[in-house]
């Protein structure tokens, strides 16, 4: 019941935000991908937010579930490892129903930019379809392909290219601006 109320509240907040967005799209864009504060301190210090990880938090999701699934070259097929991660994501998301999620698909540069764009969207769509099949409400999710933009790194070696063939499940408190 309280979860439902939280969800409604988030939707309401999102609607208000959308109303604001009409006159200030740049602000929304920066909301979508907040830039990380420059990191200070030392290796092995707890990362910001990870000092105490509460169940149901985004940190819990990152540490105990994992946001990323990977694909083989030119494929948008979910393999058994990807499905196992998505199974864990679905269990967590069904337990924590107030979170929304944006599925971001990426590709390496094995083909033309438009081909990579299509491939990355297919990957994100495949992840979303699987989560829906596992009981996650489709209204909580949206999928977007980024082609070979936003590569982890621009690179030719194999260990690096495999990092770019991925879908990242990003938790969101509110929907993206249209």
């Amino acid at each position: 019941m309280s979860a439902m109320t939280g969800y409604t509240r988030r939707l309401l907040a999102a609607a208000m935000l959308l109303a604001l967005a009409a006159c200030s799209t740049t602000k929304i864009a920066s909301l979508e991908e907040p830039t990380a504060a420059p990191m200070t301190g030392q290796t092995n210090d707890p990362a910001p937010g990870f000092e105490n990880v509460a169940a149901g938090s985004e940190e819990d999701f990152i540490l105990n579930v994992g946001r990323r699934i990977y694909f083989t070259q030119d494929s948008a097929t979910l393999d058994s490892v990807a499905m196992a991660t998505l199974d864990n994501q679905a269990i967590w998301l069904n337990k924590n129903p107030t979170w929304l999620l944006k599925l971001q698909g990426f590709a390496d540069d094995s083909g033309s930019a438009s081909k990579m764009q299509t491939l990355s969207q297919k990957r994100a769509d495949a992840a979303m379809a699987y989560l829906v099949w596992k009981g996650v409400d489709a209204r909580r999710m949206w999928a977007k392909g980024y082609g070979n933009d936003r590569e982890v790194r621009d690179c030719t070696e194999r260990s690096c290219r495999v990092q770019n063939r991925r879908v990242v499940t990003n938790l969101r408190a509110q929907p993206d601006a249209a």
Partner: protein
Amino acid sequence: MVGTRREILLGGLALLGAGAVHDSALAVASSYFAGTAIDNGVTYRTTNFAKIDKRWRRQVVKYFSSEPVGTVVVDTRHHFLYLIMENKTAIRYGVGVGKDGFKWFGRATIDQKTLWPQWTPPPEMRQRHPDLPEFVAGGSPKNPLGPRAMYLLRDGVDTGYRLHGTLDPSSIGKDSSSGCIRMFNEDAIDLYQRCPIGTAVQVLPHIADQAESAAQVSQATPVQ
């Protein structure tokens, strides 16, 4: 002090009967495990993390060394494995590494990985331990690889080394293996999910950021 008290307690229990001592001795021996879980059809004992030093548990930490995102870095000296993430962070896992004489350093890639791997002890290991079987089936409660193995190859050639689970959670944080990198079974399962085939692995004496504390550690380690 604590040990002494436990001995007194055990002594007291002995007066109550041999059965009681047997039970409590078993409880001590098995207390690194708590409960069971099922993974891909295999029931296994789960780690009793209440008994594990917090620093060996999986956590997200700051990471300022230069290895690229997605790389697995092993700091042998400090018994940590890092999976490098974005924004100068990493997931850090406690690991068990090779005993003296069995340490191994270098670069490799995870070119193969297996659920509930079977284990074939290498011939050299069977020479040292003639009691070892030729072969242990995957999923066997006697299989030291546990629920996952990630095979480390260099230029397509098997290095013989693996990242894998363990039968002995108390060996995490120690120099205990024949060169393989041991993890808690839960962590081996977790890392398996996060490392696609082709993942780069660097097994280092210690990470660049920890050179100073590595020097301190070696000074503090008495020569045996």
